[in-house]
């Protein structure tokens, strides 16, 4: 609806980290800006605002997505999980703990996106979805380092923590498999 100031607003309901929110949003607003500027959830980062760096990655209806490329108005009924929703209370997720243990970050700005992406990626792999480096054949892909690197390549890290990110994801994947 046009609120008279030339800006069009719409009402949506989104579930963010488990809590349902009824929101009136400017139809130009991205999901990323909605989270950061209106809901105070600044965990998702703005690195490029163009879907090129992955720092804004969140889980959208369970799948990893660039929040900067998703218009908030299109998310009516959606379920969003941000980095703030990955831990169970004070208990870090296995990936969060592995990132700490392996020093899988430096400045930390890409980290929320890496963590959401890795969370979504482990789920994709568990559901048998192949990547560009998965050999043809049946059965779920084995998450070796080449698979992890390929599947995590949508999340840039300028500090160059990739070696440690792969180690952390490998450790968390191993834990999940046990």
């Amino acid at each position, binding site marked *: 609806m046009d609120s008279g100031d030339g800006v069009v607003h719409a009402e949506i309901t989104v579930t963010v980290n488990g809590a349902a929110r009824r929101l009136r949003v400017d139809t130009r607003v991205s999901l990323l800006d909605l989270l950061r*500027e209106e809901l105070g959830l600044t965990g998702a980062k703005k690195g*490029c605002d163009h879907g090129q760096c992955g720092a804004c990655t969140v889980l959208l209806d369970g799948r990893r997505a660039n929040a900067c490329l998703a218009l908030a108005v299109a998310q009516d009924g959606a379920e969003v999980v941000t980095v703030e929703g990955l831990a169970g209370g004070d208990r870090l997720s296995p990936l969060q703990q592995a990132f700490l243990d392996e*020093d899988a970050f*430096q400045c930390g700005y890409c*980290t929320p996106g890496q963590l959401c992406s890795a969370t979504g990626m482990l789920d994709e792999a568990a559901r048998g979805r192949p990547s560009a480096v998965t050999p043809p054949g049946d059965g779920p892909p084995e998450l070796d380092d080449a698979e992890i*690197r390929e599947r995590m390549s949508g999340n840039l890290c300028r500090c160059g*923590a990739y*070696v440690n990110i792969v180690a952390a994801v490998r450790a968390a994947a191993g834990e999940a498999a046990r």
Partner: protein
Amino acid sequence: MRVEGREKVTGTARYAYEYPVAGAAYAFAVQAAAGPGRVTAVHDEEVLALPGVIAVLSHRNAPALKPVEDGELALFQSDEVAYRGQVVAAVVAETLDTAREAARLLRVDYDDRPPKVRLSPGDPGLYKPEEVNPSFPADTGQGDPDEAFGASAVRIDATYTTPAEHNNPMEPHATIAEWRDGGLTLHDSNQGASTVAATLAELFDLEPAQVRVVAPHVGGGFGSKGTPRPNVVLAAMAARVTGRPVKFAFTRQQMFATTGYRTPTIQRVRLGADADGTLTTIVHEVVEQTSTVREFAEQAATPTRMMYRAPHRRTAHRLARLDVPTPSWMRAPGETPGMFALECAMDELAFAAGVDPIELRVRNEPDTEPESGLPFSSRNLVACLRRGAELFGWDDRDPAPSVRRRGRKMYGTGVASATYPANLSPSKATAAAAPDGTFTVRIAAADIGTGARTALTAIAAEALKTDASRVTVEIGDSALPKAPLAGGSMGTASWGFAVTRACEALRADLDGGASPPVEASADTTEEVKARGDYARHAFGAQFAEVEVDVDTGEIRVPRMLGVFAAGRIVDPQRARSQFIGGMTMGLGMALMEESTMDERFGDYVNHDLAQYHVPACADVRDIDAVWIEESDPHLNPMGTKGIGEIGIVGAAAAVANALHHATGLRLRDLPLTPAAVLTNL
């Protein structure tokens, strides 16, 4: 574990743009669509009529700023446009989307002329700068290099080029500015809160104590946040004009013209040697660019002044003043491009003389710093090369190029030296003991991802003779004791020095019977000044293996190893992260990073992360770093040399040298692309 690690993995670590500020307005920058020239009209009335737009700032209405050394900060102070992409206006609005839309709609007219943006070694406008960054002579020389080169048994005369490269920290340059009671509070993304506060006080004609800069977490900088950028001025000005707190960030695209970059370089290197590879002559001449706004002269030939022994030598820097954004610091300015050229030339000399590349470097190892004659405080380049050779499996390497082929792939290995000066600056710090047995250390240091907070906690605990869990280190705030910026790989050394002294003084007070709460302070100015004359540098050896696809020209790097000698390593896990992070950026420099200037209209064309490629996860396979522990009494109380920058130095040369070993191709222009391989293979 990183002290602030938990905040970073749970998303609660706040970066500059993320502080909750009641009633904030949003600013968005407008860049010059033409230049150089001048702005003839800003049609601000059109966008001021849009609902939600609060103000349009430009040279027509901006408050006057006091002049400072960096002309890039003289925001909206005249109608002059120095280069296309310079910030010429800003819109302030109630929401980010409104500000962005209004900025897009703002019409600005220009009277512009064709830009001069092409860097060329034949440019008659090339000039010799008074000095190069930060304060080295532009030229140096000893002996008669021209005659000695002509008389040398083995000669290398080659020109190497490196392109413009952009720092691209993941967090864009961002500021929240708020004026309260005549003072200015800034949440800002920077590498040194004290520096930003001092500069902003100067610009806005305030007492230093009236400006407070808060930056506990910074999403990378790599030099681009070492000095204040237009973002902090823009936010402060917009907040003053509107009377509102203002949030501002450059977009990724805007960063390419507004936040600095590494100058492109054209480097001619001449090496003359005896038949056994013993150097007689080293000549390194560099051509670079700067802007018309401010001079920045990258010190690319300075490592050549201290790496290898030779009686006849010359280094020189020449600059072209172009209609381009001002280049600035990017990770290891000077050493990074300079050592690419020198270390590739050394590889060419090794090949020409039939000497193993490691042996060639060992053979030319100096006893004292070649140009200054100063003793080295410690120099373990040879130890790094030897240790790396052992770990990397160098000794059974067949030096013949282009003979290792498996299927459609060719393989090769390469080596290069690395170096970076062990800088130190004066700093202050305080240390306080509380009655509950805990300690708080305060210093306006910055943790831009280096692990400074964690390292300083360890350093403080050691000096206090207590457990690190009892120590809290407060950094990232200009209200804390004044400290130098995180740059020149001198952070931990400079801050750690002051922290050590403050903690030692506190320990002495406590041991002398003082009862908490008690505080001690330190200022290392005199001690830093009183250090003896030594050549202080960290060294390293970079090894790389490449795999080249003969059909596509694709170059992959399955393995990189760095061996470093950088004094005492305080925090091994963070140190390894720094080293491999620098090497990863070096991989990007070798294979992909290149900013392309639009020669017709000015400004960098490929200004986003889809077109300016930095390494992604799949580009990086096996990168590892190890080090040789040094005990060097001539540095600082911790015995540390900087580690933030040396990891990138020499990495690209090692890859280029490995490419030659794999294919026989000597590619001297970075980046090493499939196109260049295919054209020449």
